[in-house]
């Protein structure tokens, strides 16, 4: 079986891709202008008419959409079709108090699931595989997206949803799952649980994992690959554009191919909105080129990353994005310094700790404080207070080198930090900035 789900488009020439994008953007802008009053107003305010968009290069002329727009337009303001043409909604967790509800026509579901199918095939999936999906099902896009993708590939799909690790392991062993789909923190947790039960990495039949929906590091990838005996592939997406599968990793593991025939990516300077050339780091902006029900144009993701068109050994020609280096939302400004949780995680893994931590930010006497609780591993225990204190000092030093500011490290017993089986709560910011 070929390594591609849709070989012709996944390996199309640059010219062919641009041709598709040119054709789709003209149609899409017309569709949005005619059907989405909210965006029509934005375009009118900016003095742009659909006729001004003649090719994909003209996309620069269009206004941006932000999360604030999605909130303002909630729930139907950005709908591009009649409700009777919609067959599904999905929604974000709304943990920041800004729930997003996205609508899908059957056409939108199909293209989303095809994107997920491309990701599964790129991870080695075929109709002979057993795909265990333990992303949450329901409003969260993770479960339904990979579930649909797995169906399109023709794999046997285990719709496990998240949680109930005992049952996950039982199905994994009894039904010999070969591909695991979940958040990277849950994959790490399953790895730990398997080891606790005395299973070795070679005892399972898994060959690959498709992990996304939260930030993870190269070090975390290595540790998951080792504990499960698999190759771990990254997948990227957001509810606003569809869900997982907007971009996915191939066997080269050097970035994620963006499905450019459906999603046009730009990198902008987050402060000025200026489009940056390939290779520069900035905020990722997506345009849905052919979604009908929720057709966002120039949606600012808040994810910071870099795009690259360097030739890929896998044969795919679609542009690659780096793993997001942080989210503007996740970014903490502590004593004037930008701090990303992923940096803290990298230090922990480099220093031989498990990536089980919690960041506490507060403000005392008008100064920001940064405290990090880190779980000790059983073999790190000492009977001497001075040993533990020295470990804390060493970790503080390594953190200071990486972050530019020194956090206070508190070593805590294993499993004392509450772990969710979905997205891990990594940061507690108690600052009240009046």
């Amino acid at each position, binding site marked *: 079986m070929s390594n591609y789900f849709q070989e012709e488009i996944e390996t199309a020439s640059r010219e062919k891709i641009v041709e598709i994008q040119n054709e789709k953007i003209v149609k899409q802008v017309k569709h949005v202008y005619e059907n989405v009053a909210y965006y029509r107003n934005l375009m009118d305010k900016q003095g742009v008419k659909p006729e001004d968009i003649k090719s994909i290069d003209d996309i620069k002329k269009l206004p941006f959409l932000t999360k604030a727009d999605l909130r303002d337009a909630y729930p139907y303001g950005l709908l591009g079709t009649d409700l009777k043409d919609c067959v599904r909604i999905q929604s974000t967790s709304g943990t920041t108090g800004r729930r997003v509800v996205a609508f899908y026509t059957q056409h939108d579901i199909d293209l989303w699931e095809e994107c997920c199918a491309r990701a599964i095939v790129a991870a080695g999936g075929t109709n002979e595989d057993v795909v265990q999906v333990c992303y949450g099902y329901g409003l969260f896009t993770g479960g339904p997206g990979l579930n649909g993708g797995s169906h399109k590939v023709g794999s046997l799909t285990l719709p496990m949803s998240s949680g109930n690790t005992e049952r996950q392991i039982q199905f994994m062993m009894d039904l010999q799952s070969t591909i695991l789909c979940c958040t990277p923190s849950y994959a790490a947790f399953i790895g730990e649980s398997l080891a606790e039960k005395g299973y070795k990495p070679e005892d399972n039949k898994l060959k690959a994992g498709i992990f996304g929906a939260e930030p993870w590091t190269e070090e975390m990838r290595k540790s998951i690959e080792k504990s499960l005996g698999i190759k771990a592939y990254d997948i990227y997406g957001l509810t606003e554009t569809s869900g997982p599968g907007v971009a996915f990793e191939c066997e080269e593991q050097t970035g994620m191919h963006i499905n450019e025939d459906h999603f046009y990516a730009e990198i902008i300077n987050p402060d000025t909105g200026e489009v940056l050339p390939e290779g520069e780091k900035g905020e990722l902006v997506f345009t849905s080129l052919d979604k009908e029900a929720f057709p966002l144009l120039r949606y600012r993701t808040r994810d910071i990353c870099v795009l690259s068109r360097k030739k890929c050994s896998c044969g795919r020609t679609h542009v690659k994005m780096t793993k997001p280096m942080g989210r503007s939302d996740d970014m903490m400004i502590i004593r004037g310094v930008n701090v990303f949780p992923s940096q803290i995680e990298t230090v922990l893994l480099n220093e031989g700790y498990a990536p089980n931590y919690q960041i506490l930010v507060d403000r005392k006497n008008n100064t920001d404080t940064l405290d990090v609780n880190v779980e*000790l591993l*059983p073999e790190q*225990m*000492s*009977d*001497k*207070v*001075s040993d*533990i*204190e020295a470990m804390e000092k060493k970790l503080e030093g390594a953190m200071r080198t990486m972050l530019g500011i020194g956090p206070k490290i*508190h*070593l*805590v*017993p*294993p*499993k*004392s930090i509450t772990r969710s089986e979905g997205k891990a709560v990594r940061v507690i910011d108690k600052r009240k900035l009046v």
Partner: protein
Amino acid sequence: MAIKQLSVFMENKQGQLSGAVKKIAEAGIDIRALSIGEAQDFGILRLIVSDTNKAKAVLGEDTLCKTNDVIAVKMDDNAGALCKVLSVFDAEQIDVEYSYAFTSRDLGAYVVFRVADVAKGEKVLLENGVTLVCKDDI
């Protein structure tokens, strides 16, 4: 000869110490000696108990524990007894990492010493006529 000490990591939170001690009590394990090394936000509870392995088991997997050897010395009940023991360590340049004293009905007074090289510590003490407490005494 050396005796086993069980160290338990404690977060500096209410109920940590009582929680651990309760589990040990409920299992019918006797605490023969105890000390706590304290830092700003954690402490290390060090115990000499009647059954170290059982104590470790009842504390549970999620309790961070470590077992290691320490030297327990039987003290003569007179002035200068501790001084004599320490002078042996000094003479042999053996550093004491920490130490704690205890009394018991059966053994009288004894002092627990944590040194880097337990075997060497025991050897020099025995050579100098110091009485050690052994596992069976506990």
